């Protein structure tokens, strides 16, 4: 099992460690609810060093990335990031990724830990033109500082002008004396930053941020809070809500697809699926009574099994149980009644608009 450079820091903080995609990661420190709330109201610090980083360099780096991803990379300026995806020719997901344009000849792809090897092989198989593809994951630790007080905390540790780094932009500079790629991105629906830095500096920067944020109410936050936070804002999780069997239209990710950007892997299928109209849609629901819907619980419509819960959890912000499930298009409408089968019980549920939470 792999360990991040912060493994010992997590143990010192009494984290409960779990296996996640082959990594020994902190799932929770003291309380998932408190960690979740800290991110919504103050700040939380996550170790996301398990995420993979793949570098694409060379004079054809932009063209190649454009061909391999579904969003329009040509719209990016230096210092800009983009949420996108690698697709199979069938239009389904290899992975969802964030692309950083360092300059035209140097792009950095942040990929899911569980898909890192698959993505790297996929890119290598399609290698074309003057490019170098490198799995640079070992060279980066990654921290996510998330929450409304993130900028204020980071400003105590840097001379960088963070006002000059808007959403989905990044800059290179020093945080607590360590060279970092600092991007205003995240997976929680709050303002915040992600830092990419050398693994040798990670523990020191981690501690500096926790110290600088202590008066602001910062908490280290684990994977469990990361999951409840992302689910409340309906960010998909690969392996749960999207995978090699689902496409962008049905997942509600049409906004990251640009069919006009030119030919890319998966484009023809996506074009055809859009013409035909998708058969199902990823819909949000909430449980109307007690009980919590969990991943893989059966979803019933009019008493008949229809699909499974792709992600289900308690929502700390809404204080109710929420989830996502693929439903036939005609049923994926707010107000549609459902039942969720959880341990021999049928929990009444109703389709609702998403996101479940929106920051103020």
């Amino acid at each position: 099992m792999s360990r991040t450079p912060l493994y010992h820091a997590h143990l010192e903080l009494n984290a409960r460690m779990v296996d996640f995609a082959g990594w020994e990661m902190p799932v929770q420190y003291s309380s998932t609810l408190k960690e979740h709330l800290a991110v919504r109201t103050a700040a939380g610090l996550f170790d996301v060093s398990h995420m993979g980083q793949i570098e694409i360099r060379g004079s054809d780096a932009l063209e190649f990335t454009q061909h391999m991803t579904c969003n329009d990379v040509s719209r990016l300026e230096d210092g800009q990031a983009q949420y996108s995806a690698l697709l199979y020719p069938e239009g389904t997901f290899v992975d969802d990724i964030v692309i950083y344009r360092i300059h035209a000849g140097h792009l950095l792809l942040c990929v899911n830990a569980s898909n890192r090897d698959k993505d790297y092989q996929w890119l290598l198989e399609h290698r074309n033109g003057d490019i170098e593809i490198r799995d640079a994951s070992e060279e980066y630790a990654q921290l996510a500082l998330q929450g409304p007080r993130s900028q204020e905390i980071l400003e105590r540790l840097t001379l960088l002008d963070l006002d000059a780094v808007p959403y989905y932009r990044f800059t290179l500079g020093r945080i607590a004396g360590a060279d970092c790629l600092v991007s205003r991105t995240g997976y929680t629906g709050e303002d915040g930053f992600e830092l990419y830095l050398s693994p040798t500096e990670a523990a020191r920067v981690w501690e500096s941020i926790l110290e600088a944020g202590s008066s602001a109410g910062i908490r280290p936050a684990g994977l469990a809070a990361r999951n409840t936070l992302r689910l409340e804002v309906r960010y998909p999780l690969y392996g749960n809500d999207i995978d090699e069997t689902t496409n962008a239209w049905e997942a509600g990710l049409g906004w990251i697809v640009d069919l006009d950007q030119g030919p890319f892997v998966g484009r023809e299928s996506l074009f055809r699926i859009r013409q035909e109209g998708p058969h199902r849609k990823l819909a949000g629901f909430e449980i109307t009574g007690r009980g919590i819907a969990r991943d893989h619980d059966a979803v019933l419509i009019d008493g008949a099994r229809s699909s499974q819960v792709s992600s289900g959890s308690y929502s700390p912000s809404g204080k109710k149980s929420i989830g996502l499930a693929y439903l036939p298009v005609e049923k994926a409408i707010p107000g549609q009644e459902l039942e969720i089968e959880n341990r021999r019980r049928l929990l009444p549920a109703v389709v609702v608009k998403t996101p479940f939470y929106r920051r103020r």
Partner: protein
Amino acid sequence: MAIPEGLRYTREHEWIEILEEGRGRVGITHHAQDELGDVVFVELPRTGDELSGDDVFGTVESVKAVSDLYSPVTGKVLQVNESLEEQPELVNEDPYGEGWMIQVELTELAELDGLLSAEEYAAYLAEESGH
């Protein structure tokens, strides 16, 4: 956290405290709440319900998982902890005190002998965690 002496324990991590002759208070152990993490719902029986030893008398749901509650003894439910409706976190904060779940009228006192003492429960936990 120390396992309180004087209570009796189940292998499903419930405790029962004998309050007076024939009356017991039931909850889950510190270990159980720690394993579950933040408790967000507690589903309890109604006052007057009859329970048998080993019956599921309710469920406790945390952000992470759901777990059945097993009655340590046979008897009638005399009272349920209604505070848990609004403050399920009491189960985490004070599992042997404010986080209690039900009070039962014991009908078969001999059942208590089949439950674990604090010392036996501690040994059981150690065994379960593989030490």
